[in-house]
């Protein structure tokens, strides 16, 4: 599993406040984690970052 920063949103001209989680066993399984909404996945991501990790840059 890896985390990746999303692309710049060229439709709304903003950087999405979100992170993308990509499953290792199937990179096509993509989870969009909204960082301005509550979820267990968001908590897991923030804990991962707190451990000193950083997400991959946007494509």
């Amino acid at each position, binding site marked *: 599993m890896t985390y990746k920063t*999303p*692309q710049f*949103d*060229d*439709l*709304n001209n903003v950087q*999405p406040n*979100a992170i*993308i989680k990509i499953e290792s066993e*199937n990179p*096509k*399984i*993509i*989870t*969009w*984690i*909204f960082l301005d*909404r*509550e*979820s*267990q*996945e*968001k908590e*897991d991501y923030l804990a991962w970052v707190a451990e000193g990790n950083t997400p991959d840059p946007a*494509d």
Partner: protein
Amino acid sequence: MASEIRVDKINSLSGVGTVTLSPTGVDISGITTAATLKATTGIVTTLTATTGIVTTLTTNTLTANSTAKVGSGVTLSPDGDVFVTGVTTSTTVKVGGGVTISESGIEASGIGITVANINGGAVSGRRNMIINGDQRVAQRGTTAVLVTDAASYRHVDRFKTDLDGSGGGNWFIAQTGAGTSIAADVPTGQGFAFSSKATVNATVSQPTSTSVHHQFYTMLERQDITHLEWGTSAAKACTLSFWVKGSITGTYGLWIALYGSSGGSTYYYWTNYTIDSANTWEKKVITVTGPTSGGAITATNDLGLRIEWLLGAGSDCETGTLNEWTTSNTIRTASGTVFLPENAGATWYITGIQFEVGSQATAFEHRSMAEELALCQRYYFQSSGYTKYGAMYNNSHSMISLDLPVTMRTDPGTSTATVGTNSGTVSTNYSTRHYYQQYVTGDVSTFATDIKMSAEL
């Protein structure tokens, strides 16, 4: 100086009235008028007041061999029937030991009440506040999942599992029933087809820490429990009932938490139930009088009520008063409460969970699959086996969009899909509580399968 006349009969002038004095008493024939008439022992065979009134009749037992009547409105018949045509006023009426009618209502603890309707409407329906109480909906899948220390919805919808603390040990959680890998294990004769099953996988001795607890729980929105009036002086009693079966007998912990009172505090109700016979389905009933302080619940879509079945807690939790509302969030369990994970291969099943207003547990409210699934989809949606093709957004980009079958509780915190694209890049996701929407740049031939949206509490 006392004097006496000894005769055996006195006749009136007309000869109608006769007083006969026998050695054992007095017999009076004809009409007799007396200011006070007493019969302290023996039997009065006929007592008639045709024109006058018997103002006071004092007796230990009044026996009417035939029918006793009060005017034309009340008749007491010897076969036990009572006929009353006027208004009957009573403080309390009891029928056997099962039915009590009092000014506060009718309480029937026996078989129940058979009626055609209530207030001219349907007798039942929408009593159970628990969603998926019969454990039938499992959108995420039906295979057994190992419960770890990450709180998660792992098997059936609306029921979450978690291991809190660092006590060790773990267990599987699974759905039993048709379409799963485990044959249905449900109480007989209750109409259930599914249950949840916990099976201890890695054992661990009961720790002492109060932070350790093995959890199986469900949660309700605040706006769905405001009618309980909890937090106010009008708080209603509610009853939790469920069917449970365990390989380990004994006392198990259970607690209820109320969130969202206007006063800001969270209130906890620590209680328990007992599994009396191993590997036998038993129905448990817990009636809770709602908290009367803290302020009314604010009607929002946030967490309002949590009901948790403890499969184990640290031994230091085995203290404190049970069955009362408190703001203390330190778990309280009874002395000797079962710690399931210390028993290799131990199992615990549950189904038929119902939480309803009132002090009686009524029969489980079986709802249709369509209704139950829709209730679940407010919190989680999964389009298993369904492919949604994207539409061309412009000459190089596309948008995959799917309207959700049910408006979700809130805009989902996560949106997952298997996204197919030839050369494009999965860009911004615009999903809300109403729809799934994925923008893909650099490709107009895209699709998404296994879309998953979560707006869980």
